């Protein structure tokens, strides 16, 4: 997806790989595993420092959890990288049987609606004053947020062919490069 948008995409697993990128996407996955491995391989601290220094980061689903300052329903000892002044709830919808797809109105991206896929997804329960909600479900629960160079979505644009959230993020990367 990033390659199609003209970006040079690489995998980041180690601190030295992080040092070479001008923007980072933390994709979907298991936030508990990301936490363990990022600490084990010394990625967590450099990433916190990079976010403080303004590195643009986009987190989808588990990636959104990693960017949140506060998490509900985390497992014992689970930490996040943080950076966004938000509280998220893990597995907010329930088990896989409650996973779903729906159309979301995202004013920032205009028409048509974004077709969003939620897989054992988190929601954003509280946002601080510096955070902007970009999209909500019909019941009002926030599922896309932005704070400075940080972007987060509960859903997975990477499993559809809608490139708009990723291009929106790349604009942040280019603007801060």
């Amino acid at each position, binding site marked *: 997806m990033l390659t199609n948008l003209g970006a040079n995409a690489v995998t980041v*697993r180690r601190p030295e790989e992080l040092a070479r990128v001008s923007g980072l996407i933390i994709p*979907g*996955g*298991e936030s*508990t*595993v990301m936490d*363990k*491995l990022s600490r*084990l*391989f010394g990625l967590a601290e450099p990433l916190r420092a990079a976010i403080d220094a303004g590195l643009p980061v986009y987190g989808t*689903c*588990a990636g959104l959890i990693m960017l949140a300052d506060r998490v509900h*329903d985390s*497992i014992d000892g689970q930490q996040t990288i943080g950076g966004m002044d938000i509280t998220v709830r*893990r*597995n907010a919808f*329930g*088990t*896989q*049987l*409650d*996973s*779903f*797809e*729906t*159309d979301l*109105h995202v004013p920032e991206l205009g*028409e*048509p*609606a974004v077709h969003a*896929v*939620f*897989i*054992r997804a988190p929601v954003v329960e509280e946002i601080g004053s510096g955070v902007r909600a970009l999209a909500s479900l*019909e019941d009002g629960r926030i599922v896309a947020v932005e704070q400075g160079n940080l972007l987060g979505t509960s859903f*997975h644009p990477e*499993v*559809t062919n809608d490139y708009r959230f990723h291009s929106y993020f790349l604009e942040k990367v280019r603007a801060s490069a």
Partner: protein
Amino acid sequence: MSDSNTAEQSGTNRVKRGLAEMLKGGVIMDVVNAEQAKIAEDAGAVAVMALERVPADIRSQGGVARMSDPDLIDGIMAAVSIPVMAKARIGHFVEAQVLQSLGVDYIDESEVLSPADYVNHIDKWKFNVPFVCGATNLGEALRRVTEGAAMIRSKGEAGTGDVSEATKHIRTIKGEIAALSAKTADELYVAAKELQAPYDLVAEIARTGKLPVVLFTAGGVATPADAALMMQLGADGVFVGSGIFKSGNPVQRAAAIVKATTFFDDADVIAQASRGLGEAMVGINVSDLAAPHRLAERGW
């Protein structure tokens, strides 16, 4: 705001296949109770697989292997927050209905359990919960996808600690995909016939060069190096069954296999992860198994 198409849809193909996408690069561990599930979660498993007995015990104890007791599955679901998968017997659609009603995140229609139907697999389209199925070759994988499987795992030979069959099956599937990609359009009709799979699916794979679902590998993975071998051969992730809880030090081995799977291309990390793990599970060479005891031959 457009309200023409805002209904929420669950149980769609994209939602089912999507969960498997999120497990890529990870390790899914077999567990028989809540304690083991917790150890797996703490070690960094991306999901756990609930079953009545691990394959090594099914082999040594014999008898009919079935779906787990719902109490055990409930206990496992309560103990961990990562996805919980559970095994149903091949063709046993009522076990699958029960597992769906328990709210598991994925069902494995598995050859490791005793088959309930020697002709038909479960019609997986009828379920909202996604299914993973085993395959030894591309044709078998595509037949399972046609029946609605949202994830495939190569079978290997479960409960042996002998990785050779896992190697064979992942190489076979990858090799057959590569061979399809090299064919011209007019050759795909016969290819579909030979693979005993629908033409449309065969043509799609020839075009994209990959399965339409995530491909994990399983069956005989016992060490960090085994797991990294599977990843270097092109698997999207690894199932580890008896290899962890039949070894000398499950806590350490589970974490080591997770590390080696993430850094599968870094021999220094794999070497470090392989140190001081104590005894690996006692293996059985697949070549010493009489054909009727080979689980991979179940399913068709």
